[in-house]
């Protein structure tokens, strides 16, 4: 997802007997769906895992501005330009809310940013794929935001209060992202030959990377079991992926587009679609930095950060002068 392959700290789920009194009390609160708040006692591993997960989620929102930002100056109408700009701006807001949630756990936004820029922290693999034609902007909204929403809606119930509140705010804003994407796809699919070709091409390239967003199967992972027990993960990766496929198939059909999977079919017994796994070798390559756009994405973020340093410092210097002048006057 936006936070894929987050390494859960610790050694897996402890039995009640292995837990200290504090840990047991904490787990009981989580089980009762009580929210954990910043000043409450929490296991160190819970805190460390949350910082990684929220941080990675925030980084994904920020890096995620880039592939869509790639088309803001080329949007085909004034209205599309405004919609896309508002959408990409929302993603910056999401990053900001999430950094804010992470900051309640004792890290600063600048520390997290340094971790991203040095490559020690990751962001979602999906944003290392290029946007090559205008239908890609439709496909990103429809599929990528669609997949993100699938994961974010349940996360509104996550155990950590500030994270949960950030997700509620984000989900409220997300509702227009997927729709504007699908709206573009409808126009393209109903358009001329070239537009239909763009639409199919976009679906072909974004289908498997979208499935990868949920991460490899984690049904046997002890780490995931711990995150599920802490309620910082609500569903397994496979559950979410299945839900996404089942939701998307009829939407593609409505558009008259073909999902690039010849094994895709409805399974009456399971009441769900059977589908092909994405290429997990490709996924791990992208995570390791070998995706089509990893280098460009990091370069863009590093450049923005470094070029902006004098602005951040300059405005801060001015604020200090003002405070000093005010104090002197008192």
């Amino acid at each position: 997802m936006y936070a894929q392959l987050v390494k859960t700290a610790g050694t897996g789920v402890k039995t009640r007997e292995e837990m200290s009194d504090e840990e047991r009390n904490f787990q009981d609160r989580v089980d009762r769906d009580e929210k954990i708040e910043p000043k409450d006692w929490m296991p160190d591993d819970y805190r460390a895992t949350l910082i990684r997960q929220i941080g990675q989620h925030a980084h994904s929102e920020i890096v995620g501005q880039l592939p869509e930002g790639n088309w803001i100056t080329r949007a085909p109408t004034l209205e599309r330009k405004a919609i896309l700009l508002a959408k990409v701006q929302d993603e910056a807001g999401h990053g900001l809310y999430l950094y804010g949630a992470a900051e309640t756990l004792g890290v600063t936004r600048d520390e997290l940013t340094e971790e991203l820029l040095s490559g020690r922290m990751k962001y979602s693999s999906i944003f290392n794929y290029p946007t090559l034609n205008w239908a890609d902007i439709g496909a990103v909204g429809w599929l990528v935001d669609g997949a993100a929403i699938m994961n974010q809606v349940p996360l509104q119930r996550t155990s950590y209060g500030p994270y949960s509140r950030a997700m509620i705010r984000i989900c409220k804003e997300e509702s227009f992202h997927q729709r504007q994407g699908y709206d573009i796809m409808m126009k393209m699919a109903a358009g001329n030959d070239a537009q239909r070709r763009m639409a199919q091409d976009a679906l072909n390239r974004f289908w498997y990377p979208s499935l990868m967003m949920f991460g490899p199967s984690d049904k046997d992972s002890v780490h995931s079991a711990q995150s599920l027990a802490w309620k910082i993960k609500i569903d397994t990766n496979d559950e979410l992926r299945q839900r996404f496929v089942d939701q998307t198939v009829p939407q593609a059909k409505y558009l008259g587009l073909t999902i690039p999977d010849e094994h895709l079919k409805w399974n009456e017994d399971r009441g769900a679609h059977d589908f092909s796994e994405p290429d997990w070798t490709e996924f791990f390559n992208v995570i390791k930095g070998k995706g089509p756009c990893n280098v460009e994405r990091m370069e863009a973020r590093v450049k923005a950060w470094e070029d902006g340093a004098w602005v951040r410092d300059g405005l801060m210097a001015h604020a200090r002068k003002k405070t000093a002048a005010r104090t002197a006057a008192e």
Partner: protein
Amino acid sequence: MAGKTNDDALFQFLLRMGDNSLILGHRVSEWCGLSPVLEEDIALANTALDLIGQTQFWLGLAGEVEGKGRTADDLAFLRDAWDFRNVLMVELPNGDFGQTMMRQFLYDAWSQVMVGRLIKSGDKRIADIAEKASKEVAYHVERSADTVVGLGDGSEESHARMQAAIDYLWPYVGEMFDGDEVDAAMVAAGIAPDPASLREEYDALVNKVLSEATLKVPTDVFHHKGGRTGYMHTEHLGHLLTSMQWLQRAYPGATW
């Protein structure tokens, strides 16, 4: 509206208003995702969104006045450089963040004075657009002025960069106050003010903010021109249009 000539002049006037916000909005939108800090990224996007919104009104009305069935989109995406009527300043590349914010302030200050006058326009359609834009512009100028002051009176480096920005942009400020027969027609019809008449109020605001920013206002009165008449744009406009108009040009008649 009176005779044909007047409508021609009105059309030109509306293109000037719409092209300024279109081209500046486009430039500002280039920052999306790349600003020095998230809060600024979000704020700049708001400014760009307001400008695109104003463009839709001005160019929409321009198309209506022209009476040939052209929409705001047709005017934005299907005219070539020589038909654009924006001042040169807004088509200049962004430069660093300081240059972008300095340009924004120099434009916002003009826009505030201009829109303030247009609210009283004899043409109700124009007064209505101005009324709506005035609230956006009031916020823009407050924000860009704050940033200019903060950076001008900030660190040594930020001060130096902001002084360089005003020195670079100053020769493009004068064009906003040039007048010609289009403006004369607007004044005669009670539609819009004489551009030169905005200068005093503008200078007062700019001098106040730049002095607070500890920056020196250049004294050279020379200025470039050619944008608002369409006689001669900079080389930058063609490149901007090349990307902005790409899809409409490559796939004529498509619906997006």
